[in-house]
C-alpha cells in the first residue's frame, strides 16, 4: 500500500503511509501508542475507508469496503482488541462464516474436531465446545489467533497478539508463524515487545504520529536505532528504574496494610494467605490461567470471597463489593480493559475522574478546576495522546486507553494498588514510565500488587514474589535476585511433585 | 392468584344443579362497560345463575379462548358481547356441536348461519346515530347558533374502527343528509375519552370558525369538549350546542345543568333481560331472534327528572 491517509474528525491518524509486504516474510509494524498501527491495519483490511492512497494486492489495485472483502481476498486479521463473540463456543468463534457443512447443514462434530486440532497446534488445551466468555482474556486472544491462522490466507495480520501471553504461549505462536512463513504466507506482526520483534521479524516499518519513519531490515538494525526511530529520543529511563528498584529495601514491620487468611472462592481460587505491607511491591507470577486475576479480584471484592478472612490495617473487615475495597483505599486496574475498564462514550476526563467521583458520591462533584488540573497533569505525566481531555475514550488507541485507566486509579490516591497486566499493549517508553511510577509509588509508601505475564517485569519490580499455579498459591518468597528460571522451576517443580 | 373480590359473586343460589352461564365480556374499557358488567353480575346473582365471567381485554382472540374454555367446562349457556361483528363462526360451531346455546349481547354478529346463536339482546348503534342526527335536524332553527343559515357540526368520533364509532357516524350522517344546511366541517377521533375529547375540541376551536354543534360519540368525549369550550370563554350548551350518546350519570348531570343539549341513551343494564333469556333458552323455550333494549333519548328537561335515580 502506498500513500495511505486516514482522517478522523480532528485527528490525522495516518498521513501518506506506505507499506510493502512480501510473501514468506514477517513484517513488524512498530511505533508508540497512538502512532497509527492499528489504524493502518484497519485501513488495509477495509474497516476504515481511506481518504487517499492505493492498496495493491498481487499486482491489482484493490479497495476493500469491509473486512469480509479483505478476508475474501486472502487477508486474515487479528485486531488489537479481541474481537470475538463471547456468547458463542470456542469452535464456533474459530469457524464462524467458514463452518464445515454437509447437506447444507453445519456439521458440528467436524467443526469441533477441526477447532480442536488448530487449538492443539497452538498448545491450547481447552474444550472447543466451551463458551468463549468463560475463558480469561489471554485464552480469548489465543482463540482469535487460532481463528486467523486457520483461515488459510496469503496475508496474516496480527495486531498485538502477544500482549497478554506468557513466554510459553508466545513460543508456540512463533512456531506457528514460522511454519506459515515457510509456507509462503506474508505476516504483519504488531507488538511492543522488542525481543519478540527481533526474534521473529524479517523487516520492520516504523510509524510515528501517523507518519512513516522508515522501513528497516531487522538483521541490520540495533535495538537502540529502532527505539530512537520510534520515539525520537534516547531511552535511559529503563536503566534508571532497574537501579532504583535494587536500591530500595522495605521493612516488613508492624501491621500489614492488608492481610488475608485462607481467602478463597469456590470454583476460582483456593485458600490463599497473603499479607501486604506499606510501600511494598508484591509480584504475582504464574502461568496463564493460574488464578492470578481471580486472586486480584478477590482482594478487590470484584468477586465476593466465600471463605477466609480479611483485615485492613489490623481491623477485620469484608470485601464484598468493589466499593468496600475502594473505601479502604484499595484500587484495582483490570486486565480486560475493554469489558471492565473503558467507558467508551465518555471523555478522557470523565473516565479518569470516575473512581474518585464514585467514592465521593454524586452530591459532591469534583470541582471543575480541580478536575481540569488533575486530568491535565495525568495526561502530561503519562503522555496520553491526543492530549485533549474531551476526546472520547473509545477513539483512543489501545495503549492510551490503558494509561487513562491507570490514571483513574492514581487519582484516587490509593494505599494499595492492584495492577493486573497494567503494561499490556503499552509501548516501551510508556512501559518504562509505568514501571517508574510503580517504583515511585512504593517509595511513597503505597503498596502495589503487580500482575504481569511478563516475568522479567514482575521480577524487576517486586520486593516479594507470590507464585500461583492451578488456582493455588504455591510459593511466596522475598525477591532477592530470583531469576526467571527460578520461577519457572518453582512452577514446574510443584507440577512434578504433584504428579 | 385466586383472590376473589367482593363484586363478582359467583355462587348466588348455591346448589350445583343450578344453571351455569359463561359470560365473555369485551373488557372494562369504559364506565359504560363496567356498568354493563355489574348489571350482568348482579342479575345473575338475583336469578340464582352461576356466572362464569371473563374479561377479554378488548381482544377478540381472548373472547374466543374464553368461549372455548366454557365449552370445555360444559356450561349451560354462553353469552358474550362480541368485540367485532365478524369472525365467530368457528368457535360458535364448536359450541353448537357441544349443544350449548349462545346468546349475543350488546352487538350482533355478521354470520350467514343464524343457527349459531339463539338470540341477540342489545341496542342498535346506527339507530343511536340516527336519533342524534334527527335531533339536529329537528332543532335546526335553534342549533344555528350564529344565525348564518348553515349549521356547522364538528364531530368527535369514537375509536377509529370500533363498531359503535362507525355506526354512530353513519346513522348521524344518514339523518343530516336530508338538510343541506347542516354540514360536518370537521371530524376527528377522541378515542371515547374525556382527555381525547378535550384535546380535539381545543384544536377545533382554534382552527375552525363558526362551530354551531358538537356531536360526540359518547358522553365522555362530550364532557371533555365542554371543558375545552369553557376554557375558550364560551358557554357550552348555549354558544355551542352539544349532542352525545350514552347517558351515563356524569353526562346526565351536565345535561341537566344545561351544558349538554341532548343525549341519546345507550343502555348498559342488560343483566335482567339477559338472565330471563338465558333461563328460557336453557329450558328449550322459543325466544325471539332479536330483543332490543328499551332505550330513549333525553333533553335537558327530561334529564332533570330522571337524574336522581340514575345508577351508573
Amino acid at each position, binding site marked *: 500500500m502506498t500513500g495511505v491517509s486516514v482522517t478522523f474528525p480532528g485527528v490525522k491518524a495516518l498521513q501518506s503511509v506506505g507499506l510493502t509486504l512480501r510473501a514468506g516474510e514477517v513484517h513488524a509494524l512498530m511505533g508508540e501508542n497512538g502512532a497509527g498501527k492499528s489504524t493502518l491495519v484497519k485501513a488495509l483490511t477495509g474497516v476504515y475507508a481511506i481518504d487517499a492512497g492505493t492498496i495493491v494486492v498481487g499486482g491489482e489495485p484493490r479497495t476493500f469496503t469491509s473486512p469480509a472483502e479483505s478476508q475474501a481476498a486472502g487477508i486474515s486479521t487479528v485486531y488489537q482488541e479481541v474481537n470475538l463473540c463471547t456468547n458463542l463456543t470456542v469452535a464456533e468463534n474459530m469457524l464462524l462464516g467458514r463452518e464445515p457443512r454437509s447437506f447444507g447443514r453445519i456439521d458440528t462434530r467436524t467443526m469441533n474436531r477441526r477447532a480442536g486440532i488448530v487449538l492443539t497446534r497452538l498448545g491450547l488445551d481447552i474444550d472447543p465446545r466451551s463458551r468463549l466468555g468463560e475463558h480469561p482474556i489471554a485464552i480469548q486472544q489465543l482463540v482469535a489467533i487460532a481463528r486467523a491462522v486457520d483461515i488459510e490466507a496469503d496475508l496474516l495480520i496480527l495486531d498485538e497478539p502477544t500482549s497478554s501471553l506468557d513466554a510459553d504461549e508466545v513460543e508456540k505462536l512463533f512456531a506457528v508463524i514460522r511454519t506459515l512463513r515457510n509456507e509462503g504466507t506474508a505476516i504483519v506482526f504488531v507488538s511492543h515487545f522488542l525481543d519478540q520483534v527481533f526474534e521473529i521479524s524479517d523487516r520492520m516499518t516504523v510509524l510515528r504520529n501517523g507518519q512513516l519513519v522508515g522501513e528497516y531490515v531487522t538483521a541490520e538494525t540495533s535495538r537502540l536505532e529502532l527505539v530512537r526511530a520510534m520515539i525520537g529520543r534516547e531511552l535511559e529511563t529503563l536503566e534508571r528504574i532497574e537501579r532504583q528498584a535494587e536500591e530500595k529495601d522495605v521493612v516488613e514491620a508492624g501491621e500489614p496494610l492488608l492481610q488475608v487468611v485462607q481467602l478463597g472462592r469456590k470454583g476460582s481460587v483456593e485458600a490463599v494467605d497473603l499479607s501486604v505491607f506499606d510501600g511494598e511491591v508484591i509480584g504475582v507470577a504464574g502461568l496463564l490461567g493460574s488464578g492470578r486475576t481471580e486472586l486480584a479480584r478477590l482482594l478487590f471484592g470484584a468477586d465476593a470471597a466465600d471463605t477466609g478472612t480479611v483485615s485492613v490495617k489490623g481491623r477485620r473487615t469484608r470485601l464484598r463489593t468493589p466499593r468496600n475495597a475502594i473505601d479502604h483505599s484499595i484500587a484495582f486496574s483490570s486486565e480486560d480493559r475493554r469489558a471492565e475498564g473503558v467507558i467508551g462514550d465518555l471523555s478522557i476526563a470523565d473516565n479518569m475522574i470516575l473512581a474518585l467521583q464514585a467514592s465521593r458520591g454524586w452530591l459532591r462533584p469534583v470541582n471543575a478546576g480541580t478536575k481540569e488540573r488533575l486530568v491535565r497533569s495525568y495526561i502530561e505525566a503519562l503522555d496520553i495522546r491526543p492530549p485533549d481531555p474531551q476526546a472520547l475514550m473509545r477513539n483512543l488507541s489501545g495503549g492510551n486507553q490503558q494509561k487513562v485507566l491507570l490514571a483513574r486509579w492514581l487519582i484516587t490516591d490509593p494505599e494499595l494498588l492492584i495492577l493486573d497486566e497494567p503494561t499490556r499493549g503499552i509501548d516501551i517508553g510508556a512501559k518504562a514510565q509505568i514501571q517508574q511510577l510503580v517504583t515511585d509509588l512504593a517509595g511513597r509508601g503505597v503498596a502495589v500488587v503487580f500482575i504481569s505475564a511478563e516475568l522479567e517485569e514482575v521480577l524487576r519490580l517486586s520486593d516479594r514474589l507470590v507464585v500461583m499455579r492451578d488456582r493455588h498459591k504455591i510459593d511466596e518468597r522475598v525477591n532477592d535476585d530470583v531469576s526467571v528460571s527460578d520461577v519457572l522451576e518453582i512452577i514446574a517443580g510443584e507440577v512434578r511433585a504433584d504428579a | 392468584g385466586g383472590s376473589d373480590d367482593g363484586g363478582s359473586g359467583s355462587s348466588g343460589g348455591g346448589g350445583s344443579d343450578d344453571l351455569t352461564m359463561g359470560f365473555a365480556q369485551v373488557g372494562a374499557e369504559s364506565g359504560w362497560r363496567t356498568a354493563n358488567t355489574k348489571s350482568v353480575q348482579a342479575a345473575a346473582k338475583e336469578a340464582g345463575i352461576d356466572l362464569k365471567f371473563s374479561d377479554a381485554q378488548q381482544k377478540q382472540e381472548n373472547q374466543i379462548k374464553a368461549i372455548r374454555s366454557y365449552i370445555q367446562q360444559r356450561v349451560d349457556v354462553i353469552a358474550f358481547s362480541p368485540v367485532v361483528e365478524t369472525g365467530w363462526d368457528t368457535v360458535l360451531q364448536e359450541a353448537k356441536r357441544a349443544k350449548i346455546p349462545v346468546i349475543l349481547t350488546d352487538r350482533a354478529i355478521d354470520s350467514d348461519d343464524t343457527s349459531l346463536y339463539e338470540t341477540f339482546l342489545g341496542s342498535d348503534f346506527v339507530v343511536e346515530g340516527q336519533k342524534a342526527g334527527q335531533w339536529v335536524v329537528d332543532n335546526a332553527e335553534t342549533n344555528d347558533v350564529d344565525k348564518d343559515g348553515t349549521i356547522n357540526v364538528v364531530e368527535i368520533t369514537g375509536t377509529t374502527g370500533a363498531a359503535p364509532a362507525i355506526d354512530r357516524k353513519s346513522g348521524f350522517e344518514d339523518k343530516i343528509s336530508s338538510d343541506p344546511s347542516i354540514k360536518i366541517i370537521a*371530524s376527528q377521533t377522541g378515542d371515547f375519552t374525556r382527555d381525547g375529547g378535550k384535546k380535539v375540541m381545543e384544536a377545533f376551536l382554534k382552527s375552525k370558525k363558526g362551530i354551531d354543534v358538537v356531536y360526540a360519540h359518547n358522553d365522555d368525549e362530550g364532557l371533555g369538549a365542554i371543558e375545552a369550550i369553557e376554557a375558550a370563554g364560551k358557554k357550552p350548551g348555549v354558544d355551542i350546542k352539544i349532542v352525545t350518546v350514552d347517558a351515563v350519570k356524569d353526562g346526565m348531570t351536565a345535561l341537566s345543568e344545561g351544558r349538554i343539549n341532548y343525549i341519546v341513551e345507550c343502555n348498559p343494564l342488560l343483566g335482567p333481560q339477559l338472565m330471563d333469556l338465558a333461563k328460557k333458552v336453557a329450558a328449550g323455550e322459543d325466544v325471539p331472534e332479536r330483543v332490543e333494549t328499551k332505550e330513549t333519548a333525553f333533553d335537558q328537561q327530561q334529564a332533570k327528572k330522571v337524574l336522581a335515580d340514575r345508577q351508573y
Partner: protein
Amino acid sequence: MRSALRHPLFWPVLALGILLLVNLVATPSFFSVRVQDGHLYGSLIDILRNGAPTLLIALGMTLVIATRGIDLSVGAIVAIAGAVSCTYLAGAPDESSAGRAIVAMSLAVGVCILLGLWNGFLVAVLGIQPIIATLVLMTAGRGLAMLITDGQIITVNNSLFKKVGAGFVLGLPVAILIALAILLVTAVLTRRTALGMLIEAVGINPEASRLAGVRSRTITWTVYVFIAFCSAVAGLMIASNTSAADANNAGLFIELDAILAVVIGGTSLAGGRFSLTGTFIGAMFIQTLATTIPTIGIPSETNYLFKAIVVILVCLLQSPKARAVLRVRRPAPLLTRGSQA
C-alpha cells in the same frame, strides 16, 4: 452556521420548526396568542400545556434509558396517580377544599413512588430485564387503578386540583411550569453534580462502572423511582385536566410517546449519553404533532399513516448516516456504534 449544523439538536429543532410552519400555513391563526380570562390562550399554549405530561415522563424515561433500561409501566402509574387522588378527593367530606387536594396529590405521589421502588427492586436487585420487569406493573397497574376507581370514571370538583393540569399562573399553564421546573431541577441535579456522569457511566459499561466503585445498583434503583415520580405528577396533570380519573384510558400508550420523544431528542436506546434539552424538544415535537392532526384536519383513518411518515422523516433527517447517503460519500463506514461486550 457549520457548527450549528453539527450540533446534535439542530435536526430535532429543525423538524419542530417545519412542523410549526406546516401548521401556520394550514391555519394562519396558529401562532396567534390572545389573553382570555386573564391567561394566555392559543394553539401554542395548548401545546405547552398538553405536552407537559409527556415531557415529564420523557424526562424520567431519559434517565432510565441512559442506564440501558426502559419503563413500560408509566402509563399504568399515570392511571394509578389519577385514581388515587380522585378517589380520595371524591370520598372526602369537603371535596373542594384546598387542603384535601394537597393531601390527595401527596398520597398519589407517595403511592407511585412505592411503585417506582418496586420496579427498581425488580430491575436493580433481582436483575430482571427492565422490559419484562416493568411489563408486570404495566399489566397489573392498570388493574390496580381500576380496582381503586371500581372501573368507573371518578369526577371531582376541586379548584386547586383542577389548577395542576388546567390552571394558569401569570398567564402561563401551571402544568408546563411544573414540568419545566422539574426539568430544570433534574438538569441541575444531573449536570451540576456528578449524577449525570455516573448515570451515563452505568449505562455505557455497567461492569466497568461497578469496578470503578460506582453504586450502579442504587443509581439504577433511583432512576426508576424518579420516573415513577414524574409519572405520578403527569398522572395528576392528566386527571386534573378533565377533573376526572379514567383508569382505563389515562396515559394509555404514553410510554411510546415518551420513548419517541427521548429518541428524537438524540438519546440512544442503547444507553449512555443523554440530553435533557433534546428530550424537551422531542416532547414538544410529539405534542405539536398530536395537535397538528386535528388542527389541519387529517382524517382519523390516516392519523397513523401521517404519524408513521413524520416519524420516519424525522429519524432520517436525524441520522447522520442517512444524511450522508443523501449528500456525499463519507469515510469511516464502520465502528460508529460501541459494542457491548
